[in-house]
């Protein structure tokens, strides 16, 4: 039970418009009840990986051409987003895709789409419990909320769907450091208290590795490194290229910092 696999991505390739290959054999797995983070720079294929899982590649003319994605042991690759969301996989899109002309509470109610007709009052209370800032704003149009409120809104909206696996795409994007910290604390609480399994894509490697149990590093459409979060935090390459801290912690001499001196070991 403890180490049950929730999601198994097995060597998938993703191609857009039948020609543009963005993922070249990505494999990862997510253990039930864990937070797993997926790190990497821009264009590494993190978002495409999430969309392959949630089925949102389809509207963008993308396809999983090889490999398989298994959720609780059943294949789900290339299923439609309607089917995948009804299995309990909800993706929170990058860049806070709120419904501008709906109020905050109406935004949250859209989260009930996968279980239409069921009561949702308690879920609303749960979301307001995690994000008290939303309660104050519940009657105002989402288009007029601040960036931090919107990030809370889209995470809360996803929670309304009772997700078993929550895919978060860059929750820290464009937020002040203090707010980032707050959001990540809440994510951690949700994981602990609701038992939600999370796969978090992040640029902010430091933050992501603090709350995660396990991490993967992606580059050029491939997984280049994977390990426990603590080991990744201590790894010299990750420190250098993603955490931005020097290996020794002390100030290094100029010649050590010169980028051509040090090469990524995995390339």
């Amino acid at each position, binding site marked *: 039970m403890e180490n049950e696999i929730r999601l198994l991505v097995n060597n998938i390739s993703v191609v857009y418009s039948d020609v543009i290959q963005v993922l070249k054999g990505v494999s990862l797995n997510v253990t039930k009840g864990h937070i797993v983070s997926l790190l990497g720079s821009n264009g590494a294929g993190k978002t495409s990986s999430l969309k392959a899982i949630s089925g949102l590649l389809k*509207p963008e003319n993308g396809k999983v051409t090889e490999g398989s994605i298994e959720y609780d042991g059943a294949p789900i690759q290339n299923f439609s987003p309607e089917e995948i969301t009804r299995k309990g996989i909800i993706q929170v899109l990058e860049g806070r895709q709120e419904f501008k002309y709906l109020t905050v509470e109406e935004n949250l109610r*859209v989260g009930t789409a996968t279980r239409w007709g069921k009561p949702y009052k308690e879920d609303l209370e749960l979301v307001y419990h995690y994000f008290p800032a939303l309660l104050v704003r519940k009657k105002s149009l989402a288009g007029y909320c601040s960036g931090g409120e919107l990030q809370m809104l889209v995470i809360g909206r996803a929670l309304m769907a009772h997700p078993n696996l929550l895919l978060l795409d860059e929750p820290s994007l464009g937020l002040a450091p203090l707010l980032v910290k707050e959001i990540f604390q809440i994510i951690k609480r949700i994981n602990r208290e609701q038992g939600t399994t999370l796969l978090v894509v992040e640029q902010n490697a430091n933050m992501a590795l603090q709350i995660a149990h396990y991490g993967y590093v992606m580059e050029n459409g491939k997984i280049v490194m994977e390990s426990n979060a603590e080991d990744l935090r201590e790894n010299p390459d990750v420190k250098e290229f993603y955490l931005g801290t020097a290996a020794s912690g002390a100030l290094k001499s100029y010649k050590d910092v010169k980028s051509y001196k040090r090469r990524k070991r995995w390339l």
Partner: protein
Amino acid sequence: MDFFMQLLVNGISLGLLYALSALGFVMIFKSSSVLNLAHGELLAIGAFVFLVLSAWADLPIIIAFSLTLIGTFFLGFLVERLFLRPLIGEKLIEVIMMTLGLGIMFKGLLLFIFGGDIHAYPDFLPEGLSFELGNIFIPSVNVATFVIGILFLIVFGFFFKYSSQGIYMRSVADNQPAALSLGVHVRRVFAMSWAIAFIVAAISGIVLGIINGVNVHSLSAVGLKVFPVVILGGLDSIGGAILGGIIIGLLETFTGGYISTSLREIIPYIVLVIILMVKPYGLFGLVEIERV
């Protein structure tokens, strides 16, 4: 003064009718950005279905009316399924051309079945509905139009504002990728918007049929009037469609009453041209929310 009041009452009830008819048009536009050029024919279909059920099959009016609404609802689903769903993902212009084709096809079918004559519904509105207000006489047709217009505008208003399905429909209009990511069944929302458009068109078609008689040509011509209404109100605003409808209805009756009856039919389009020149987003079009 009495003449003025009489025109005011007529104008508002006509306007509510236009508003109801425009509501169906705005729904489709909001959820899928498709301009439905077959809207007038949807009105005609509703009116003729009611004609068949009430006059030919001789059903009681309430039953005929309910059956018409249910029938057109499913017809809307069917039309979306057969003709529009295959075009999802194609260019918008192709979908709009499809609605043009559908309109011509529907009109042809109706002409083929019913001919170009004016048909009439059995006289079912009780005389007791009409009443006199001072010196103004309000005929029962206007009272019925008024009641039906207000009633259904409130019903649909509540549906969009408070019901879950209504909120899902608005979410698709607002941000389709986000709606998809939360599991909103976008194709079902498109189908729903066509089904509801068929229903509201049928309601306004029936009432117009009571007023002017049921005729394919005149009903499908009314469909063209949704354009001044929605452009005046703002293409994507349900509230705007209602106000736009009432304004156009009033303009028509006042022009007809005070200036000339031949100008009456043209005035909405004159307004359309002026509005497009000075305020292309309409009076009540959505203000683009932008964060800076």
